[in-house]
């Protein structure tokens, strides 16, 4: 394990160099579905962060007991447990938000991002590595969700966190808050990030 990444490397890599959405193109369902407003997107990012952190730690603790052919099932069951906790918590304390997010909270279970992190990092390294990795990936995921949601909310409603930032005269681009806007925004942002990365490489 000499060349395995250290906790700090894992943490830093998750934020930008291996950003889950822009670099690895993982976990797209919530990325597209809940980013029509920043509030919903941030709640979603927090829920994913909680589930990812807990699932990563638990998986890392039981990594020696895992059987290769059963590991995916174990991962999903671990994740499902924490998603149930997050879902009940939201329903109890943020009822309106839990209604808005609807089925996308339970769909965290099948978010490839979390399973991928369990597989790549947590099932091979210690809980400290796994925790740092989860934090970095969560911040990266939150940044991605936030950037998409900000673009969509500003263009679609002229508001940010429900506060008006563009003048009243702004014609709301309703399509940006509807499903097609999600695909277009993510596609173009992904292109922009790729372009930036390529330019960095050239220099």
């Amino acid at each position, binding site marked *: 394990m000499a060349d395995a990444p250290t906790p700090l490397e894992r943490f830093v890599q998750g934020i930008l160099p291996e950003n889950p959405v822009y670099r690895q193109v993982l976990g*797209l369902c919530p990325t597209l579905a809940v980013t029509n407003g920043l509030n919903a997107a941030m709640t979603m990012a927090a829920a994913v962060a909680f589930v990812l952190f807990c699932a990563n730690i638990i998986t890392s603790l039981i990594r020696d007991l895992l059987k290769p052919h059963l590991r995916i099932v174990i991962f999903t069951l671990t994740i499902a447990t924490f998603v149930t906790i997050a879902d009940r918590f939201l329903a109890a304390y943020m009822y309106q938000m839990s209604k808005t997010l609807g*089925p996308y909270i*339970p769909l965290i279970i099948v978010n490839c991002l979390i399973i991928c992190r369990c597989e790549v990092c947590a099932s091979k390294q210690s809980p400290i590595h796994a925790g740092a990795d989860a934090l970095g990936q969560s911040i990266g995921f939150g940044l991605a969700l936030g950037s998409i949601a900000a673009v969509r909310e500003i263009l679609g409603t002229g508001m940010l966190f429900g506060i008006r930032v563009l003048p009243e005269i702004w014609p709301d681009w309703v399509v940006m808050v509807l499903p097609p806007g*999600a695909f277009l925004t993510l596609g173009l942002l992904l292109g922009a990030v790729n372009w930036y990365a390529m330019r960095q490489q050239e220099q």
Partner: protein
Amino acid sequence: MNYVVDILLIAVSAALINNFVLYYFVGICPFIGVSRKVDMAFGMGCAVTFVISIAAFLSWTITTYILKPGAPLSQWVAGMFVSPEMAASIDLTILCYIVYIFAIASSVQFVEMYVRKFFPALYKSFGVFLPLITTNCAILFACLTIMSNVAGVDNPADAWDLGRSLTLAVFGGVGFTIAIVIMAGIREELDLCDIPKPLEGAAITLVVAGILALAFMGFTGVDSGLKKALTPKTSEMVQAQVVRQQDQLATIALSSNPVGMHR
């Protein structure tokens, strides 16, 4: 008659209007990963439709007989240990996520064995994607929609029966197949085009998907029109329908919240 109309509406809505991929964003991973060739996309669509039907059948059965409050099986088991009044109040819906994911994982395992035995060529071309169906959100999403329509309704008479649930699942799968095959067709042509370098791969696929979603938005309102055409009614009901339809169109236009279940 009413039942047939209901089934038809669920089918059209699941396949076209509220398309799983282009409206609810579930099943995006295979939509982007396996949409390079039309025949492979079609195979993937069929596999998903098949698994989704099995999973829907399982989840409806489990929800109706075990999970929902006052379900017969759990009441019977609990009745052996506690008083009947306590047994009647048992509500196991909190377990639904874990139960569903387990049901899906096992049915995927079953389909994988079946395909490997009877269609070895298809199995080879699927490669890693068949096990990945387990983590396809479309399937869990169908199960959750069924659950909210079985256990989440206020009036027990409104709860979906097996026919409605299976219709949603099968036509949800058909909608997924339609979307992924169209996408694969576009991408085959796209390979011949000169795409700006940063947009290659996932980025251009997402932009194309956005335009496709825009086209599928044209189906909005088809369900209310269909309902109007199929239900015989008095003039007052027609009036009410028109008002409701206008309301619906207004909400669609103003909606800043396409998230959430509409069925």
